[in-house]
């Protein structure tokens, strides 16, 4: 494939049926191999595919993808905390909220593609370097004691990603040989990427960039402007 034109032609024009068949086949293989383990899946025609598996079949799903779907390439592994931030949405506010009580009514939890049922969701992606298709995997975790099997037996590259997920979200990785902090100091307390972990800088000082979301002059109500008065 030394000529790039032919390669891209396939992707951009004749692609839709071909790559969708490929993506559907991946979902079908997972459904066949995991059975009940596959909870939900979504194929976005010609763009992407998401699958949600149970936490118990997390490692098995990786093995199936690697061995039977050609997903030799480990892309990334992380997690999502679906809880809406208990501190409100500072950026939406037109005024500085930092002096007020940060506890606001939490919104109901809402999930993204393929849905969800618990607060924490694992998020990982693997890729087929020959067929050029990537798969995003998700798995719901227990809200109180999130834990999941390590992917290291299938993809050794998951090592550091799992350590990051462990320190940032507090997700216990079962079977990880070296579960220590990757970025944070060893005495660090808390899991910074959880939504209930406050971004202290924002709590003590309003973000100056907040002006960006205010209306600009001539765009509706003009803010009081006493001239430049220098």
């Amino acid at each position, binding site marked *: *494939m*030394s*000529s*790039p*034109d032919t*390669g*891209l*032609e396939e*992707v*951009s024009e004749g692609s839709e049926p071909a790559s969708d068949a490929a993506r559907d086949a991946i979902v079908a293989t997972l459904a066949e191999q995991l059975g009940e383990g596959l909870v939900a899946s979504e194929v976005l025609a010609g*763009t*992407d595919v*998401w699958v949600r598996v149970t936490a118990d079949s997390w490692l098995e799903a990786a093995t199936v993808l690697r061995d039977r779907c050609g997903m*030799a*390439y*480990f*892309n*990334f592994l*992380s997690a*999502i*905390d679906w809880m809406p*931030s208990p501190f409100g*949405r*500072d*950026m*939406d506010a037109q005024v500085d909220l930092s002096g007020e009580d940060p506890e606001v009514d939490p919104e109901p939890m*809402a999930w*993204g*593609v393929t849905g969800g049922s618990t607060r924490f969701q694992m*998020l990982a*992606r693997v890729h087929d*370097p*020959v067929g*050029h298709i*990537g798969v*995003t995997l998700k798995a719901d975790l227990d809200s109180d004691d999130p834990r999941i099997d390590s992917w290291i037996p299938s*993809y*050794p*590259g998951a*090592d*550091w*990603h799992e350590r990051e997920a462990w320190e*940032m979200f507090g997700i216990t990785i079962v079977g990880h040989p070296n579960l220590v*902090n*990757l*970025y*944070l*100091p060893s005495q660090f307390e808390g899991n*910074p*990427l959880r939504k209930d*972990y406050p*971004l202290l800088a*924002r709590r003590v000082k309003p*973000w100056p*960039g907040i002006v*960006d*979301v205010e209306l*600009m002059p001539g*765009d509706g109500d003009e803010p009081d402007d006493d001239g430049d008065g220098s």
Partner: protein
Amino acid sequence: MNDVANRNQLAYIAAQASDARVNVEFESEGMTLNLGPQHPATHGTLRVIVKLDGERVLRADPMMGYMHRGYEKLAEVRTYPQVTTLVNRIDWLGSFANEVPFILAAEQLMEVEAPPRAQWIRTILFELSRIANVILFLGDMGVQLGAVTPVFFAFRDREFVLNQIEAVTGGRFHPNFDRIGGLKDDLPKGWIEETTGVLDRIRTFCDEMEDLVTGNEIFQARTRGIGVIPAEVGLAYGLSGANIRASGVDWDLRRDGGVGLVHDQVDWKVWTHPDGDSFARYWVRLQEVREACGIIEQLLGGIPSGPVMAKVPRIIKVPAGEAYVETENPLGVMGYYVVSKGDLVPFRVKIRSASFNNISITPWVLEGTYVPDVVSILASLYFILGDIDR
């Protein structure tokens, strides 16, 4: 005759035994060597704790976090246009390229497409940042192995590329030029001719490197067969970019399913190398700089006319959804997994940076190598600390 052979054999066994004993003694002592956090060979603050047995590396543990800035958390309290300012600082040598996949992910969620002219200029700047990034590697690779001259050449010629980026974006290091729906501005007058001149300089630089470094005996001795990464191991660790292409994997997102950029409009080649050693990684990058010059030159000749900005609302709210977009950045695959809930701010941004995966193979690849090769291997994997720590 037979006696002589036997005697030789016995002498050999004795020598082996004494060597073995010496090794055992070394092993019992062991030694821990701290490479970094401030080490000239680490481009920033990567600290590698190396456990040695004599000159041999028993175990290498990179320690990160000296530059962790928490962009994933910060992005959750920034509006979409503000996030580009953050992600600019991930791979600071090729800043513009960091913005592109994030903007593309947001565009995918908003179902907006940049006008053709914006896509072309984006691709040109994308490739210019590749040159700005990779030629520093080419010079740096020499300096790591004791050749001081190449790095001066690299900085000298990189300046011309940065000038071109500055002329368009106003920023040498952090352009912050990409916008959802297009670009901030059009190209300045006369820029195309100037850039063509710069490309000639870069081509000359590549030839100089070829003369000065590639054929150098010392360079060859210190890189050939050093730090060999087989393709399947590299894939399982998520290596990308020139690192994986140097292991013979013919995979480049610019050609294979990349979105939003116009690499498919020009004629170019993906270079691979079968060896997978330090030399192969150096060689592939050298070819990629040349190839990038060709890509830019062809694109410059055919920039379509028209606006550089699509019609987007001034206050950008991204519809709820999830998108993952990755591009072939100078250091490798860079992607953003953006989760939106329909707000001004992203709900979650997972930044998949190339160097984090590229460097996660170091414990595997450094095991059993020798101390001088550690430097050569780390240099050839080519990481930017900001791209590891994010």
